[in-house]
């Protein structure tokens, strides 16, 4: 290899790739909208003590079931607690549950899914266990776990993660199974790529797009399950202001004080929407064949 090498100039440098935030936003409105909405909710959750103008736990029976007004922005509940403050604090619970459920189930699911899809011997054993887990309803599992321990956020997260893991595993495994038969995997093996690198570089990145879509779904459904559990009284302790708890407690007076369930309900819907929009946008963006270049 001597003669052809001279064709290239000695000072050859690859031109740097430019990135413009404005262009990125203009080309990905769905991601931008979802991300901004979610970021706003996360900020609300983090700065809840500064945003809420009153104590969400303070009971004031004199002011019970007051409609939204200048003093109580979202009204009060049957104990006279301020619904605005409770809703703001409730964002914390929902976001923590949603994000940790998405994170933990994706991490576990991705690992198991890669192993199942790539190493066929692991597959038959792990998948039968997954089938078993999938048959467990989250709500029953949560009730069982909470009767065994004491109610709390951690146990709620665990109870939601366990049945969600198989959903992720199935998606990842299916993608890995289709990728491992792609000629580019054979091509990489022929080029001397070893198992670990093959998994991390050629298989893993191709599973990320479906994984992200699936984990946003899991995140959204985690929030909804938490709300359902709290609504049923099997979630976080009732005094904790989670959106599910607020709705559950407002249920009795919903005809005379609809704000106690509508407002946290709307917040729950907006949060789930933001997460789903972000997931859909990322799915389109992460596929280089669909993406318009930045």
């Amino acid at each position, binding site marked *: *290899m001597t003669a*052809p*090498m001279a*064709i*290239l100039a000695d000072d*050859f440098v*690859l*031109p740097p*790739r430019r990135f413009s935030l404005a262009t990125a936003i203009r080309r990905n409105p769905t991601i931008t909208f979802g991300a901004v909405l979610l970021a706003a909710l996360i900020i609300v959750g983090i700065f809840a003590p500064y945003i809420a103008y009153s104590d969400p736990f303070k009971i004031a029976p004199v002011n019970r079931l007051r409609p939204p007004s200048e003093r109580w922005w979202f009204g009060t509940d049957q104990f006279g607690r301020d619904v605005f403050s409770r809703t703001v604090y409730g964002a914390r619970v929902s976001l923590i549950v949603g994000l940790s459920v998405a994170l933990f189930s994706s991490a576990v699911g991705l690992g198991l899914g890669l192993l199942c899809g790539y190493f066929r011997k692991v597959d038959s054993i792990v998948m039968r266990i997954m089938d078993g887990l999938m048959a467990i309803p989250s709500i029953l599992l949560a009730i069982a776990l909470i009767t065994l321990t004491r109610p709390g956020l951690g146990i709620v997260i665990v109870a939601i993660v366990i049945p969600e893991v198989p959903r992720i595993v199935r998606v990842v495994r299916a993608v890995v199974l289709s990728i491992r038969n*792609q*000629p*580019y995997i*054979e*091509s*990489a*093996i*022929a*080029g*001397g*790529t*070893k198992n670990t*690198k093959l998994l991390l*570089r*050629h298989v893993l*990145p*191709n599973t990320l797009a479906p994984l992200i879509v699936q984990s946003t779904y899991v995140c959204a459904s985690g929030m909804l399950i938490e709300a359902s559990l709290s609504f049923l009284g099997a979630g976080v302790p009732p005094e904790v202001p989670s959106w599910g708890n607020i709705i559950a407690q407002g249920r009795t007076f919903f005809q005379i004080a609809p704000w106690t369930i509508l407002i946290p309900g709307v917040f729950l819907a907006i949060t789930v929407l933001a997460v789903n929009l972000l997931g859909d946008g990322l799915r389109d963006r992460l596929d*280089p*064949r669909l993406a318009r270049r930045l």
Partner: protein
Amino acid sequence: MSEPSAAERPVLEVEGLVKHFPIHGGLLQRRTGEVRAVDGVSFSIARGETLGLVGESGCGKSTIGKTVLKLIEPTSGRIVLAGENISALKPGAMWAHRRRIQTIFQDPYSSMNPRLPAGTIVGEPLENFGLSRGRDTDERVAKLFERVGLRPDAMRKYAHEFSGGQRQRLGIAKALSVNPDVIVADEPVSALDVSVQAQVLNLLIDLQEEFRLAYLFISHDLAVMRHISHRIAVMYLGRIVEITTKRRLFSQPLHPYTEALLSAATAPDPKRRRQRKRIVEGDVPSPANPPPGCHFHTRCPYATAECKVTAPPLIEVAEGHHVACLRRPVGGDPGPLSIPG
């Protein structure tokens, strides 16, 4: 094209290669049979030589390619690469030998990871074998791009941003990157336009002369074979039926199947079309249930009663010309065969 020297030991020798794929069926997925994709194939390739492997779809050409690359494990037989028997090596032990044997795939699009830039794909074998690292890899890849006729700034592009011919050039650059001894080219030009085919074939020929590469060139296209091969092996249903130099194969085919293949190929001269003898009739039998005796007897116009019973061995009937046909004995008349009965 210079004829390769015969004195040197062949860089790739294959002896009695067999690959049977099991067929599982029934409720319990028991083994109910096997597809005899490759059924006892032997050949060798010298440095700087191209052996063409030609045959119909499903005759086992690609299986031979993949088995030689050890992408699938052979059922039995010996594969000797640069003096070392690699046929029984486990994946871990095989790794060190992979640098010597590289491959170019039929479909250059699906053989490139859609999520990696072209430069990374081409540079991957270099880094895998520790031949270069980081910035050094970039430079070497840029040079490889130049060598195969691509602009080095295309390193940043993804597979879908290239044309078919460019993608195949990328495949060639990747195969070439680790300076291999043998390249298995599995239908490398059949997905390309005819005009681009010639460019890619000429590039392969230039590279062969430059680096003394040995090619195992798999194709069903006789025109392509004629352009690039030094020797050609004709396959039928998992076996080589004839193997000889390009010149002899095209001027004096001895096996009835080769004859049929050649007569089926489009003649460049329209007047010759009228003289065309015939095209073999019927379908290729299933490799899961090959006919006894000579595999070709079901479609061979010259088949005798013996052909239905005895499998013909591949014998050297003239120097460098092996044929597996009972009606072509050593020193026999190379003229046309008579139709029995």
